[in-house]
């Protein structure tokens, strides 16, 4: 069989590749940033509560997060030879995953900080949110998910595409089967009113279970 241009362009790895960086530093930087930001926020809240405000809490926590981002940037620059050697598909793939993770972390932070009522579970309760936070969350969910999903679906390989599609179908069934049944039973006062977010959570769990099974078994 003739060797095509396709083969010629296949990457000869192991020659120009940089050394595979460990995952320890990114985890350490992320954890240090989160804990330090929480500590600074707590300290600033405490001083403000005692009548001696040093600076606004969001500013203090934001400065810590900024320092963490700079540290992460310096680390990525140091190990740049490794990921610059990746194919375009692989770089976009990881960018879409990290992007989705950052959007999730930002949404969780907003959910936690945007509660009007204090107390209760910040993530799965239906407690009131401030309108500004609610609008930002909705836009983040719709826009962020659409953009990251667009890039992710364009760059996944065959194997992951199959896992993703079957997982999507499992999530669909996990929503479409119980939702109308619950709705009908709720109309007869047999069950409490339909909780959409509980159904979404169930669908996401079914989706994740099938995805991880097909991708990593």
């Amino acid at each position, binding site marked *: 069989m003739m060797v095509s241009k*396709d083969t010629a362009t*296949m*990457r000869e*790895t192991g020659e120009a590749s940089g050394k595979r960086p460990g995952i320890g530093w990114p985890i350490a930087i992320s954890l240090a940033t989160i804990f330090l930001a929480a500590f600074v926020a707590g300290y600033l809240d405490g001083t403000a509560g005692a009548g001696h405000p040093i600076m606004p809490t969001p500013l203090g926590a934001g400065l810590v997060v900024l320092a963490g981002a700079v540290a992460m940037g310096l680390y990525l620059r140091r190990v740049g030879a490794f990921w610059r050697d990746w194919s375009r598909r692989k770089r976009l793939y990881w960018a879409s995953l990290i992007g989705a993770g950052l959007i999730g972390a930002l949404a969780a932070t907003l959910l936690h900080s945007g509660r009007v009522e204090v107390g209760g579970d910040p993530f799965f309760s239906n407690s009131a949110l401030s309108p500004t936070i609610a609008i930002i969350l909705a836009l983040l969910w719709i826009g962020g998910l659409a953009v990251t999903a667009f890039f992710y679906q364009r760059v996944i*390989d065959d*194997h*992951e595409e*199959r896992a993703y599609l079957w997982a999507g179908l499992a999530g669909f069934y996990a929503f479409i089967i119980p939702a109308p049944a619950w709705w009908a039973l709720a109309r007869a006062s047999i069950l409490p009113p339909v909780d959409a977010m509980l159904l979404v959570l169930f669908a996401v769990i079914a989706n994740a279970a099938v995805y991880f099974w097909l*991708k990593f078994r």
Partner: protein
Amino acid sequence: MNNQLKVLRAMRNWSQAELADRLDVSRQAVNAIETGKYDPSLPLAFKLARLFAMPIEEIFDDGFEGHRDDA
């Protein structure tokens, strides 16, 4: 579907990760093909055939033992 991927890879002393990089797929994809948990798409099968410079049917075996005309 049976395949010779593990043997062909071992003959070249490549790790799963190295083969995955050459095919621009994930290491999990190579592992799933080798263990028969996943049959690759036609484009990926052709890519494998080109990489190993072999016909697809010498890499993959669907277990069919009759004549080609019987298929």
